[in-house]
């Protein structure tokens, strides 16, 4: 029965909501500092798997130009699993860094999702193994740095002579498993390129090296790629279901996957 003040209530609710949202947004750091408190994956990071943003000209193994090539570092064992880094080098510069292997399962998925994209970025920026560890993922960071160092050593050793031949696994992991990158397939929304890790004639891992980006595509990629990766590993062939709502990406993915399988088989 107390007097109600509808207008006052509307104003209060609006002001409280707007200022609450603005406060929350402003409390978030602009760029991932190592001290970021949250241990989660930003949408775009899960989107393209463990992928750094496309740095300049991304050249897949098939379409490799003269000056670009990939070098894979040693597989480094950490307490939580193996870390292995692969670099794309063009004109003696690291244009792209990515983790071919990283700890998986349970919490490790979270940590990997958090740490690897950041380490990839740092590696490209620093052009050396002198990069900051990601807090909360120290073991992964240390393993990453070791593998990165070995990859950089190889780059120095061959100093530009790597002609970007076929698949990138020049590292020590060749005996058990090797990675094969399919051809880059153009779709209406962007390029799709699949890389698979093959061991004992089976696909142990599938990932998208390239996938459509920007705008709506981010969402679609986030939605479709992890599912397609899973399907590819489960099926062991390119006969996998398209993800509804992401038909173009799915089709491109399947084509690239097929080409990777052809190479792996041949």
């Amino acid at each position, binding site marked *: *029965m107390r007097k109600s003040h509808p207008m006052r209530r509307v104003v209060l609710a609006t002001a409280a909501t707007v200022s609450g949202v603005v406060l929350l947004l402003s409390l*978030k750091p602009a760029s*991932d500092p190592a001290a970021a408190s949250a241990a989660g994956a930003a*949408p775009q990071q899960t989107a393209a798997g463990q992928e750094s943003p496309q740095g300049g000209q991304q050249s897949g193994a098939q379409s490799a130009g003269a000056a670009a090539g990939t070098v894979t570092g040693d597989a480094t064992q950490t307490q939580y699993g193996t870390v292995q880094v692969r670099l794309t080098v063009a004109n003696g510069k690291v244009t792209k860094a990515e983790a071919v292997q990283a700890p998986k399962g349970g919490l490790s998925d979270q940590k990997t999702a958090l740490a690897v994209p950041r380490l990839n970025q740092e590696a490209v920026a620093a052009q050396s193994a002198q990069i900051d560890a990601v807090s909360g993922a120290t073991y992964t960071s240390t393993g990453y740095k070791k593998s990165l160092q070995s990859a950089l050593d190889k780059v120095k050793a061959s100093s530009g002579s790597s002609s970007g031949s076929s698949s990138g696994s020049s590292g020590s992991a060749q005996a058990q498993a090797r990675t094969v990158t399919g051809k880059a397939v153009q779709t209406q929304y962007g390029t799709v390129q699949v890389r698979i890790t093959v061991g004992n004639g089976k696909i142990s891992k599938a990932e998208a090296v390239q996938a459509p980006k*920007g705008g*709506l595509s981010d969402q679609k990629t*986030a*939605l479709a790629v992890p599912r397609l990766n899973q399907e590819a590993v489960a099926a062991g062939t390119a006969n996998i279901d398209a993800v*509804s709502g992401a038909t173009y990406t799915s089709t491109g993915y399947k084509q690239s996957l097929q080409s990777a399988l052809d190479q792996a088989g041949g």
Partner: protein
Amino acid sequence: MTTTLAGGRAARRQTMRRIRPRRSPAVPLLLAVWAGAVAVLWLWWHNTPSIADDNGKILNAGRITGLLAGYLMALVVLQMARVPALERRVGSDRVARWHAMSGRYTLCLILAHVFLTMWGYALQAGKSLGDIVQQTIDSINQLPDMGKAAIGMALFVLIGLTSVGPVRRRLPYDTWYHVHLLTYAAVFLTFWHQITTGNDFAVEPTAKTFWYVLYGSVTALVLWYRILTPIRLNLRHRMRVEAVIEETPGIVSVLIGGRRLHRMGAEAGQFFRWRFLAPGMRFSSHPYSLSAAPRPDMLRITVKAIGDHSARLRELTPGTRVWAEGPYGALTAQRRSKGKVLLVAGGVGITPMRALFETLPGASGDITLLYRANTTQDLALWDELAAIAKERGARLMYAVNSPEGERPDISAENLQRKIPDIDHHDVFMCGPPGFAQSVYEALRGAGVPARRIHHESFEM
């Protein structure tokens, strides 16, 4: 014809009960709601390591508003699930006000969510705010479950529009009500895009599970309490109209018979939502308070013919089947503390007061009823009230307009003069909004604490 419907022994036994005040669970419930909102915000916080630029800020504002809207939407539906803890302990009127308030707020959040998200996507795709319409169309075409969400959104807007004050007053109650039922469809349609496109649910399986549990339990409660419980109640008690009696000009009582009606657990002061299965009345149900303590074979409601529906009650024929849902309402004996009680009734607001007057526990002299009406002729149920007053030694007062039409002065001073220890009373009040407001102020002026004034109001 006099219609003295005395409760007999059962009612007399009720007056001897011990007084057991019960606290309303409103505060713990509200705390739980806030805790849930904080958890939802934490989910966002936890899944967002950083926000790169203004575009990211816009998208994240869209995510926050979307998450909150999704959470509140479940609660808005829950508030209308007729859960007994809400209807009988917190009070149907209060829950209905919560529902109206949170419904409006949720709709605003939904609109903000759609606008911010589409704006953010447009910017992300290198377009500007002006392309937001095209962006929305693209999203509906391309993202999973967005078509459904768009239809649901349109329904929400329609429901919101029909609930805006001036529009609602012009619409027939039934139209408004049936449009409002579309909420269930809208919630269903918008649920799926939250799961398939919501980042937080894609990343966190726990969050997804929590969301399913939240919506699943609300669905279960709605099915149980809005559908199954009424069906069971009516199959069990098989109520029919026994008689319709004109109490005063314009006020009729409907006597409703049935089987083992005392087993429904209705208390004096509560109401049912009644649907009379007669031509033209089948499709709408209306809340009317019991105007006598429930008897094993008989319930009674007393209604003033003000609307379409209540005017038609007069023409009900004995034997008409009755579909009732309830009992609802928290204006019962559990509200009072140990002490004396003043009941204040304005006009047809006498109905729940009449039932309470008969059954409220209390010794002789503990209970007082103040009955306000325009003329002595309009004092419906007066004979019964006088009989009850005599039997249990309660005080009965009335206030009517003077023969010149002058309104009686119910002021703090007058109340204090008539009831010197008024500040030691619990007050139960029922009447039209203006009347209730002025009596409330007089009572406060006379020193009655706000927490001891119990009032049910269905004004939004």
